[in-house]
């Protein structure tokens, strides 16, 4: 096939026209060559971006008819069932969109489903970034922007949900007002100013409308653009694999392939949202009836992303309410309404800096961690997910109680306990699973896969043939070594660059840091010194492998194949050189670590940098390392 490198005249003229004015040839090419690593989980943020675009398009369309007015009217429109019902103009105009504007019902449902999917995509995108450590330097700022987008998206959703002025939406506003009123000293003022008087007043929808269609989406749009620009500038993180390093990104270039893929994905996202909107009824405000402050429905819930707030309002008890000189401080409203979301978002925002402080890891990272290789972070993430999930489930405790015929109060008690116990269990279990997976990875590296083929050697010995992991797999597994460099670096937390225990580490904060650092890194299945074993290919395959080995294979340093080889050269161990500092961390470790006798064999298998001799774990001897089911296999 011939390739056309001469641009057609029309295109050339356009290009020249633009370049004459903007001098874009070089920048343009550079940007079209931008590389995006391939993985489905890297598309999660795109789902959010595309949902946001869908929201803007449909939202603009909806404003053509929506009247953000709370003027009370008696409905006299084409939806017969509600004729003669007193309602606000906002509600009536929403009915108009639903029943008088062709496609109105569809577009309103697209808007609503897209909102639900938007926030859901934000959450899974955020979890992906968290669990792979993609928030680390140099991407902390973008992480913070992401948190801001998440928080704003929730508020934006709440306000949008409130606009049609139907029964549940008005209750959402009522609860919002209740939380505002609970604020000490300023609460009543804030409420009066926001609502233009008492609840519900005649202004709130007009004001929420402005916030919903102008202010918050404006800020959101700016933040999202900034988020994408920073991503563009810094380039996307990638998962470990062949040729992927902290200095080099491997993936599909923007032009032509990625642009087509991303464009296609926009249409696919839009299509899924639309097919749901066409067939699954969402937020049927015409069935709810208009808002009145005196009516309520059972099973009242906010949209899912406010569910955790609803849950925390439900399960937080009134035990801590108190008064100051007769003035009420209703902590049962303030804590779940403000402190708990503050805690969740605060913890998210602080974590990248916290982790950096704990580990002392100030390097740049462009290759994501495999979650198993950062067990404490993964454990904390799971704990956070469980915490959020319990609150979320508690937000529908009445539906659960009704569905499963459980006592309503018992669901509350259960969630109160689960909120505390659940995250702890989640942390422990997730961390254990991570360590187990690490051990399996090491097993794979050292012994390959069990093939299930039994072969008799000329000596008469039977062995099970182990298959060598592919080079790709090896490079993925080896990424753990990078991680271990970081673990090694953490020792610098207590030692200054001269190898002397830093005075800082003796202070209270220093000890805390050393303790946290120890806690963060103590459990780890070290890969260092592990020997890659090719396993035992059957005789005929051995020849095959020889034959297939490309001439260029020797180019790779440290890749002597076949046969066993040492993984990358040993790491730099600050601790070995600076035993003084080690004692500090050792001391810190002893404060929390279980006494040696209490350690199970299982724990003992983990490398604990507690004693200088343990620092570099001895290359695993076969006696301790080999699992019984893995026969020696003729070394």
């Amino acid at each position, binding site marked *: 096939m011939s390739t056309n490198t001469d641009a057609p005249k029309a295109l050339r003229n356009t290009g020249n026209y633009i370049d004459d004015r903007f001098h874009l040839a070089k920048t343009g090419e550079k940007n079209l060559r931008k590389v995006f690593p391939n993985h489905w989980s890297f598309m999660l943020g*795109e789902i959010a971006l595309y949902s946001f675009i869908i929201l803007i398009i449909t939202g603009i369309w909806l404003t053509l008819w929506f009247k953000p007015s709370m003027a009370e009217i008696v409905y006299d429109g084409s939806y017969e069932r509600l004729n003669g019902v007193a309602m606000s103009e906002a509600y009536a105009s929403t009915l108009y969109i639903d029943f008088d504007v062709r496609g109105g019902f569809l577009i309103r449902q697209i808007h609503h489903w897209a909102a639900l999917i938007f926030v*859901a995509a934000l959450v899974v995108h955020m979890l992906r970034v968290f669990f792979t450590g993609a928030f680390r330097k140099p991407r902390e700022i973008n992480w913070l922007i992401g948190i801001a987008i998440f928080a704003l998206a929730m508020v934006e959703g709440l306000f949008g949900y409130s606009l049609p002025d139907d029964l549940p939406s008005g209750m959402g506003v009522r609860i919002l007002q209740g939380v505002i009123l609970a604020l000490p000293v300023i609460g009543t003022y804030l409420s009066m100013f926001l609502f233009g008087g008492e609840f519900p007043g005649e202004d709130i929808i007009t004001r929420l409308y402005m916030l919903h269609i102008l202010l918050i989406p404006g800020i959101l749009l700016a933040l999202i653009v900034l988020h994408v620009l920073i991503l563009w500038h810094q380039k996307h993180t990638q998962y470990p694999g062949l040729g992927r390093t902290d200095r080099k990104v491997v993936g599909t270039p923007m032009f032509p392939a990625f642009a087509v893929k991303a464009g296609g994905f926009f249409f696919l996202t839009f299509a899924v949202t639309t097919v749901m909107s066409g067939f699954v009824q969402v937020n049927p405000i015409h069935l709810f009836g208009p808002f009145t402050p005196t009516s309520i429905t059972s099973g009242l819930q906010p949209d*899912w992303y406010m569910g955790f707030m609803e849950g925390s309002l439900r399960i937080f008890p009134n035990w801590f309410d108190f008064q100051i000189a007769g003035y009420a401080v209703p902590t049962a409203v303030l804590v779940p309404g403000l402190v708990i979301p503050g805690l969740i978002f605060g913890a998210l925002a602080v974590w990248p800096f916290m982790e950096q402080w704990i580990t002392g890891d100030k390097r740049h990272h462009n290759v994501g961690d495999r979650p198993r290789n950062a067990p404490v972070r993964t454990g904390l993430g799971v704990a956070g997910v469980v915490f959020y999930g319990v609150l979320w489930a508690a937000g*529908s405790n009445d539906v659960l109680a009704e569905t499963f015929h459980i006592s309503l109060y018992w669901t509350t008690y259960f969630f109160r306990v689960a909120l505390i116990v659940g995250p702890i269990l989640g942390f422990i279990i997730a961390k254990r699973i991570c360590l187990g997976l690490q051990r399996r990875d090491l097993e794979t590296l050292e012994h390959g896969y069990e093939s299930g083929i039994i072969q008799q050697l000329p000596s008469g010995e039977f062995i099970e043939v182990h298959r060598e992991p592919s080079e790709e797999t090896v490079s993925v597994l080896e990424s753990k070594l990078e991680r271990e460099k970081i673990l090694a670096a953490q020792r610098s937390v207590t030692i200054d660059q001269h190898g002397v225990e830093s005075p800082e580490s003796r202070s209270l904060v220093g000890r805390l840091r050393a303790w946290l650092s120890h806690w963060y890194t103590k459990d780890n299945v070290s890969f260092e010194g592990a020997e890659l074993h090719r396993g035992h290919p059957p005789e005929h395959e051995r020849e095959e492998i020889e034959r297939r080995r490309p001439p260029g294979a020797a180019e790779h340093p440290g890749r002597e194949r076949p046969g066993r080889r040492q993984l990358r050269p040993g790491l730099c161990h600050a601790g070995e050189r600076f035993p003084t500092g080690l004692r500090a961390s050792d001391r810190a470790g002893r404060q929390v670590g279980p006494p040696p006798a209490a350690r199970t064999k299982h724990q003992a298998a983990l490398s604990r940098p507690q004693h200088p001799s343990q620092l570099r774990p001895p290359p695993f001897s076969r006696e301790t390392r080999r699992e019984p089911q893995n026969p020696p296999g003729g070394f």
Partner: protein
Amino acid sequence: MPSMNPDAQMPRKPPVFTQEQIDDLVAYYEEEIGVAGPPVPEGVPGNMPRRAEYGDEESYEEAKAEYEEAVGAYVQGADDTAAGEKLYLTNCAHCHGWSGGGGALTGGNFAPDLREASPRQFYEAMVTGPGAMPYFNDETITPDEKQDLIAHFLTLENEPNAGGIFALNRVGQVAEGFIGWTVGLSLIVACAIWITAKQRAHD
């Protein structure tokens, strides 16, 4: 009947007795044990005919059509379903929900699903207060207002879902969130997996 556990709330079950037997039972109760319950006006359609009580398909269909016609007439007879909606939302929805799907009460009890109830069952429940339900007698809510209320509910219940055939049982936001995650997001992620799937011959 009989209830196996007097503390647990009885769920709605298909009746074991025929209508005739129930009528006899009620007559016996009123005669020998108790006083008659509050009156229910004529013209409030009773129970949906049950197939088992009719010998052949034809007479059952006839009875069913008759019942449906009576319900239709009852609903048509209501003059102010807007007032009915107001009454329903103020006095009923907090337990039974906006769509009549029921809701949780304390102590493991629940407000039952209203969507299978006949107009007469509505009416009787209001004036007799089964279980934990308070009474709404004919003075606080007059028979005409009760008719409005029932008509509102039946109209709402029978209204097709303008937003699509899957109405998620009209549960509301919990079901919507669940579907948004399990169907919406999952389908989109499936598309993402398709787009980014590895194209390779081995490994």
